[in-house]
C-alpha cells in the first residue's frame, strides 16, 4: 500500500534528490500531491493517470496520496512524472516494490505512456550519486555525462513495467544521434587586416581580460568577437562538467559526446531582459545567458543599446564569477565565469574618421552614459576598431589562423597558471607587485600618465594586468614588465568619446 521511489528535481542549475512517497489506501477515490508542488508538478496527476490507463494497467480507484520529500522545498517541472507513476504502481501492487528499491527514475510521461526527455537531466543524475537511474531514451547523452551508476534507457511506461515484473530484460536502446551538427568554428584567418584588434583578441584570450570593442558599423567587431571562443583552450574535465550541467539545466542541446568541451559562445540580443541575461523566474529559476556562457565567451553586441538596468545586473557576475538569484521561496547560486566581449559604436551616428561624426552633444552624452562607470571599469581592454581602408584590405596577407594563435594563448595561460595559479586578469594589487614588477622605463611612463590625469588608480592596475599578459605572450622567460608592453597596454584602452574626454582617463 506504500512505496518510496527515488527521483530528482532541478533548482537553478543544481539537481536535488527527491523521494516520491506514494500511498494507496482506503478512502474516497482521489489523488493528491503534497510537498510544495507547483502547477507543473500538479499536472502530473492527469498525465500519470492517463499514461497508466493507456498502458493497459489499472489505476487504483481509491485514495491515492503522494508526498515529495523533502516536503518543505518547492518543486517544479515534469521530471518526476515517471517516479510518480512507478510509485503508484508499486504501492498498488502492479510492480514488485523490491524491484524499484535501488533504482531512480527521471522523465516526463506522455498521455499514451511514452517517456519524454526533460531539461537538466545531467545535474539531476549527478545529484543521485551512485544509484542506477532510469531515464528516457532522448536524455541518454546527458545522463551518461554525469552518471556514476548504470543508466537504463526506457522508451515507454509499458516497457518499464514489463522489465520490473521480470517479463523481459532491460532493453538495449541506442542512444539517439544528436542532430547532425557541423562544428563550425570561425577562424581568425578570415579576418583581413585589423592587426590591432587581433592583438587585443589574443591578449584577451591569454589573460582572460574582458574586452570592449568600439568602432563604426561595418568595421568587423562581430566578426572578431565570434573568433574569440576559438582561441581559448578546450575545457578540462572539471570545467567541462560545470559547463555541461548548467547548459543541460538551461535546456541547451548538448554536443555529440555529451560533454561541452569547447568554450561556449553566447551572443544575447540587446533586447534581452534582465532575467534572461542573469537567470531567474518566480518558482522555476532558470539559468540566464551569463550562466550558459560559463567557462566560455559572452558576446554583447551593441552593448549601449541594452537597457541600463539590464547591464547593471551584470556587475555581480563580473565581480564574483557567479550569480545569486533570490526569490521569495528559492535562493539559487548559478555559475557565471565568462569572458565578456562587448561591441559598440563610438557614437549614435556611427562615427568614423575625425570630422565625420554628425551627432550633437546631447545625443553623444546620452549614448555614452548608458554604460555605467563601474561596468566600464570591468573592461581591461578597450580597443578602437576601424573600417579598413581600400589600401589596407588589398595589401594585407591573410593573417594567422586561430590554431596558431591558440597555441600561443595556451602557452601563456599555462605560464600564468604555473606562476600564480590564476589568470592574469584575476591578479589583485598586491599580487601584481609580486608577479608583474615593472622596469624603470615602464614605471616612468606610468608616472607620466598618472601625473597628467590620463590614468586613474584603477586604470593603473588594469594596465599592469594587461601588460603582464602581453609579456607572457611575447617572451615566456621574462618576469619584468618593460616599457614597450606598458605602451601597448596603454594603446589598448580606447577613448570612448573624444569630445567628452572621459576615455583618456582609463
Amino acid at each position, binding site marked *: 500500500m506504500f512505496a518510496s521511489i527515488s527521483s530528482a528535481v532541478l533548482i537553478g542549475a543544481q539537481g536535488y534528490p527527491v523521494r516520491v512517497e506514494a500511498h494507496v489506501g482506503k478512502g474516497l477515490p482521489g489523488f493528491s500531491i503534497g510537498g510544495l508542488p507547483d502547477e507543473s508538478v500538479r499536472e502530473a496527476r492527469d498525465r500519470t493517470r492517463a499514461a497508466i490507463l493507456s498502458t493497459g494497467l489499472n489505476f487504483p480507484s481509491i485514495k491515492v496520496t503522494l508526498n515529495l520529500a523533502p516536503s518543505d522545498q518547492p518543486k517544479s517541472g515534469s521530471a518526476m512524472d515517471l517516479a510518480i507513476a512507478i510509485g503508484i504502481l508499486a504501492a498498488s501492487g502492479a510492480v514488485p516494490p523490491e524491484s524499484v528499491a535501488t533504482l531512480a527514475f527521471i522523465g516526463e510521461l506522455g498521455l499514451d505512456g511514452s517517456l519524454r526527455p526533460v531539461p537538466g537531466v545531467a545535474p539531476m543524475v549527478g545529484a543521485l550519486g551512485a544509484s542506477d537511474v532510469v531515464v528516457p531514451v532522448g536524455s541518454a547523452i546527458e545522463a551518461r555525462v554525469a552518471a556514476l551508476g548504470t543508466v537504463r534507457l526506457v522508451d515507454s511506461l509499458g516497457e518499464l513495467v514489463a522489465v520490473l515484473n521480470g517479463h523481459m530484460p532491460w532493453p538495449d536502446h541506442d542512444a539517439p544521434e544528436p542532430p547532425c551538427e557541423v562544428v563550425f568554428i570561425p577562424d581568425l584567418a578570415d579576418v583581413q*587586416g*585589423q592587426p590591432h584588434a587581433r592583438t587585443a583578441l589574443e591578449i584577451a584570450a591569454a589573460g582572460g581580460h574582458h574586452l570592449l570593442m568600439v568602432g563604426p558599423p561595418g568595421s568587423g567587431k562581430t566578426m572578431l568577437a565570434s573568433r574569440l571562443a576559438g582561441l581559448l583552450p578546450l575545457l578540462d574535465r572539471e570545467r567541462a562538467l560545470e559547463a555541461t550541467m548548467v547548459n543541460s539545466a538551461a535546456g541547451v542541446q548538448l554536443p555529440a559526446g555529451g560533454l561541452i568541451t569547447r568554450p561556449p559562445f553566447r551572443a544575447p540580443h540587446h533586447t534581452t531582459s534582465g532575467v534572461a541575461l542573469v537567470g531567474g523566474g518566480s518558482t522555476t529559476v532558470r539559468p540566464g545567458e551569463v550562466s550558459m556562457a560559463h567557462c566560455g565567451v559572452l558576446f554583447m553586441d551593441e552593448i549601449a543599446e541594452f537597457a541600463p538596468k539590464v547591464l547593471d545586473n551584470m556587475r555581480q557576475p563580473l565581480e564574483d564569477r557567479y550569480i545569486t538569484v533570490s526569490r521569495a521561496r528559492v535562493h539559487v547560486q548559478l555559475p557565471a565565469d565568462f569572458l565578456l566581449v562587448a561591441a559598440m559604436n563610438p557614437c549614435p551616428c556611427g562615427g568614423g574618421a575625425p*570630422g565625420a561624426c554628425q551627432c550633437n552633444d546631447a545625443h553623444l552624452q546620452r549614448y555614452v552614459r548608458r554604460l555605467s562607470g563601474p561596468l566600464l571599469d570591468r573592461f581591461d581592454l578597450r580597443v578602437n576598431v576601424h573600417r579598413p581602408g581600400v589600401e589596407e584590405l588589398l595589401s594585407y596577407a591573410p593573417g594567422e589562423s586561430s590554431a596558431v594563435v591558440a597555441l600561443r594563448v595556451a602557452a601563456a595561460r599555462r605560464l600564468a597558471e604555473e606562476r600564480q595559479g590564476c589568470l592574469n586578469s584575476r591578479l589583485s594589487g598586491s599580487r601584481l607587485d609580486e608577479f608583474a614588477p615593472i622596469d624603470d622605463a615602464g614605471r616612468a611612463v606610468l608616472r607620466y600618465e598618472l601625473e597628467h590625469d590620463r590614468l586613474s588608480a584603477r586604470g593603473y592596475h588594469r594596465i599592469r594586468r594587461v601588460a603582464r599578459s602581453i609579456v607572457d605572450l611575447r617572451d615566456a622567460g621574462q618576469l619584468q614588465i618593460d616599457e614597450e608592453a606598458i*605602451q601597448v597596454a596603454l594603446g589598448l584602452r*580606447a577613448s570612448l568619446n573624444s569630445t567628452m574626454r572621459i576615455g583618456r582617463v582609463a
Partner: protein
Amino acid sequence: MSADDGHLAALAGLQLMNPNRLRHVLHGRSAAEAFDMATGASAPSPVLSTIFHKNEGLATRWRQQRSEQPPESWAASCAAANIQVVSESDPRYPAQLRHDPGAPAVLFVRGDLSVLDARRVGIIGTRNATQQGRATAARFGAELADANVVVVSGLARGIDAAAHRGALHAPSGRPVGIVGNGLDIPYPKQNTDIWNAVAERGVLISEWPPGTRPDAFRFPLRNRILAALCEVLVVVESRETGGSLITVHEAINRSVVLMAVPGAVNNRASAGTNSLISDGVQSALETADILMALGLDGRRAGRQRFDARPRPRGPQADIVAACRNEPRTLDGLLLATGLAIGEVALALARLERDGWLIENGGWFEVVDEWVDLT
C-alpha cells in the same frame, strides 16, 4: 539702466516673437507704447492686427504674458546677468547694423560695444572639426588679434571656440561673440570659460533676451548678424551642407569679402570650404592673406610661435610623415611603416607626449604648435 530695458526685453521675450514681428511692433514707437500695444493695453496698429488675425491665439497669449512676466522682472533679470539692452534708436547701437536689411530691432549685450569700431574678421566653421582645423582657427585668431583685428565668431563647439581661444590667447585680443540664445545661459556648456572671457574682454551679442533656450532655429538667424558685423569672413572647415554655409550666404548678400581654408580632398570636414574655393572664393593659407584682404600690411604677422618640441627621429619621423596628410589609425600606421605593434605603440606614445600627435577616437593626427589652444 534705462526704464525702457524691461519693456524691450519683455517684448523680445514674448512667445513666438521673431525678428520681423519685433521690428513691426517697435516701428517708430517708444518701448513702453509698443509693449502696451502688443499686450493688448492699447489698440494694435494695422500691421499688428494683421499678424494677430493670421495667428489665432497670439493676441491672447501675449496679453497673458503681460501679467505673468511684467517688464520689471525682465529688467531685473537683465540687470542680474549684467546685460545691456540696446534698441535701434540707442546711440550705442552698432553702426554696421543700422542699414542692414535684417538688422535686429533690439540687441542684448554683455561687454563693450565699442570693440566693433576696430577692423573685424569673422572666423567660422563646423562643430565637427578636425584637430588641424581647430589649430588653424586658433592660429588665425591669435595672429589676427596680435595685429589688432577683432575676431568675430559664434562661440559654437569646434572651429568657433578655437578661434575665440586663439584671440583670447593674444594679450590684445578683444573678441566678439554672436550667439543664438540668452546671454545668461552659456551654450555649449563646455565653452562657459570662453563665453565669460569674451564678455569680459570683448563683447557678447544676442538678439534674444535672457533665459532664451538654444533652439535649433535661432542659430541660422544669428548667422545674419555675424555676417553683417564682419568685413572679411573666413571659413576654416565646413561640410558640404554645413551651417557655416548659411553664414556664407548671408555674407555674399552683404558683399562681405569671403575667404576659405583649403583642406584634403577626402576630408569631409573640408568638403564645403574646398567647393567654395573651386567656386572662386579666395583661399586663406596664412594670417597675412586675411590681413591683405583687409588692406593691412600683413608682412609681420604670422610669425610662428617658437616650437620647443623635440624633432622626431627614426620611426617617430616615419610616423609623423605618414600622418601628415590625413589622420591614420594604428592599423594604418602598422601597414604604412611595416613596424611591429610594440614599436609603433612606443613611438606613438612619445610623439603624443611631445605634442606632435593627438589621438582622437583611435585616429592619430599631426598637430602644430597651436594645438594647446584648441
